[in-house]
């Protein structure tokens, strides 16, 4: 009897642990990050509106970073035009997802004719831990108010999407169904002693997970994560946080460089060591205008990364700084100031 009781206790513990584990997984996967880099693009950059008519234009918002953007709100007021935005605000945009805001611009019969240059002011927020940052970005918009249309103008069919809300409901639905099926199969196994329903549900998870994952391009995401080595991620070096501060000796050495030098800074959006390396190069360049630089996203320009030697033994290593004229490379962000100065002084 005592052994049987022990077995029961162990089983209950296992079940509790499993439940706890999957709850954490569920919370974890719903957890959202920070630091978005939003990319805005208009469906049409030259918009023609007839007097007394209307036109629609879509603003596509892509979140290319690993973090979620929040409270994405557009501001567009143009004298003489009635502007309606749909949706008026996107509450959140998860990593690697996109959304579209559709603006409906209506001109009255008295709106003056001619070209008008305007901007859409975008406001959004991201948070790292308890620190939140607000971003403003202006999207240029060129309008041309034309004479009243003689024939009805066909409006482009642009559908507004609030990616986060829609996909969240789909995801919650899919996960909810999965959990429900799993629970039913487990109950059948325990109460009726039938094993095949649980196996069938798990096979469904395999087929469904892989198929839907591939449909969502998650296999590419996995490959991308595996292919790029961020030096701080697996503990090759410590992630440097905060803004880099140049030493006075470093500033003198940088100012003394009298050669035109171009640097390429290779980074990945999820790399924790990269922002520091980028900021360091920016700081160095402000002290010596002869030093030019460009940031290269290795996911966007893999061929350039390969040509530049940023790929080490098949792995793209970031952050990496390349001196273009000599082809010299340095990796990582540790003791970066001295290594960067050495790189700049070599052969100068």
């Amino acid at each position, binding site marked *: 009897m005592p052994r049987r009781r022990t077995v029961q206790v162990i089983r209950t513990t296992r079940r509790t642990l499993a439940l706890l584990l999957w709850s954490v997984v569920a919370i974890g996967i719903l957890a959202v*990050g920070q630091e978005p880099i939003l990319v805005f693009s208009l469906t049409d950059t030259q918009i023609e509106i007839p007097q007394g008519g209307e036109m629609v234009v879509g603003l596509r918002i892509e979140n290319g970073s690993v973090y979620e953007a929040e409270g994405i709100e557009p501001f567009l007021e143009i004298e003489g035009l009635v502007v309606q935005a749909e949706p008026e605000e996107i509450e959140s945009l998860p990593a690697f997802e996109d959304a579209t805001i559709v603006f409906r611009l209506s001109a009255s019969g008295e709106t003056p004719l001619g070209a008008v240059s305007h901007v859409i002011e975008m406001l959004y927020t991201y948070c790292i831990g308890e620190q939140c940052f607000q971003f403003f970005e202006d999207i240029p918009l060129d309008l041309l108010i034309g004479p009243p249309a003689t024939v009805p103008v066909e409006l482009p069919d642009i559908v507004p999407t609030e990616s986060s809300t829609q996909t969240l409901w789909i995801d919650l639905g899919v996960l909810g169904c999965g959990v429900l099926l799993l629970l039913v199969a487990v109950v059948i196994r325990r109460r009726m002693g039938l094993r095949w329903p649980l196996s069938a549900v798990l096979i469904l998870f395999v087929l*469904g997970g892989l198929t839907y994952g591939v449909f*969502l391009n998650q296999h590419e995401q996995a490959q991308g994560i595996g292919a790029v080595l961020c030096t701080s991620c697996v503990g090759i070096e410590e992630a440097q946080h905060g803004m880099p501060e140049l030493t006075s000796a470093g500033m003198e050495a940088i100012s003394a460089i009298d050669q035109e030098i171009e640097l390429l800074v290779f980074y990945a959006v999820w790399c924790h060591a990269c922002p520091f390396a980028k900021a360091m190069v920016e700081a160095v360049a402000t002290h010596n205008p002869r030093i030019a630089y460009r940031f290269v996203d290795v996911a966007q320009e893999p061929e350039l990364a390969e040509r530049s030697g940023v790929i080490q033994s098949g792995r793209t290593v970031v952050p990496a700084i390349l001196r273009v004229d000599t082809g010299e490379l340095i990796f990582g962000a540790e003791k970066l100031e001295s290594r960067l100065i050495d790189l700049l002084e070599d052969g100068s």
Partner: protein
Amino acid sequence: MKLRNRRRIVQGSGLLLGLFGATGIGMTHLIFPGLHCYACPLAVTVCPIGLMQNLIVFGTIPYFWIGAIVAYGLIAGRGFCGWFCPFGTLNDLLAFRRVKTQDALSYSKYVVLIGTLIAAWYFADTMFCKLCPAASLEASIPYLLLGVAKANRPFLIHMATLGATLIGMVLISRFWCRYLCPMGALLSLFNRVSFFHLHLSTERCTRCRACEPSCPMGIAPHIEHDNHNCIKCGDCVDACKLDALSLRFEWPGKGSAKKGPQEKR
């Protein structure tokens, strides 16, 4: 051929897949069915634990990852630890002391797994990777030799975790697999439903306990052949003179889920 020799061949193929980058093939979309660092210069597969942490940081619902993990769990459960995982193979090669320890301690690997998930979420970083001894061996040391890494604090932390794990492996067989491996914790959830499993014939078993000392995971196979910690290595099968234990690959729908042999005791 003894099961152990067959296992060595399969373990060799696991190592081969782990180091397939030597052929010049880059990273593939495949998730490795074990603990193998994707930062390894020769890796062509993605580490499931590293990927899981990244997906938590990104806030991605990991459908592809779930599909792959459930597939591996359903095929063999912890059989991958015993037969395929390169870090498991290292554990295997250092399994000199096949000691039996308190079973309750083995639940610590679930704590590691949950801790890994929470740390990834809380710090928005792959915290487990910075301590992972597999990464120490497969990424830190190779990158030091390649000149990318330096013998800095993170490197020394990696060496400390690797050293401690190696000592643990020598003192307690399959130390990492038993107590600490988060991938083992994930696969163990599927151990009872996996196609590849350890079968016990209660008719043949005389409870002679000859299998017990052979188990590198410290399990008594004749009473808990479907234990969550069983890595299905088959050492107990080799040790059993009565052929009461066998490794089988069969559709799990066969038979009843009730009244496992260990409960009849």
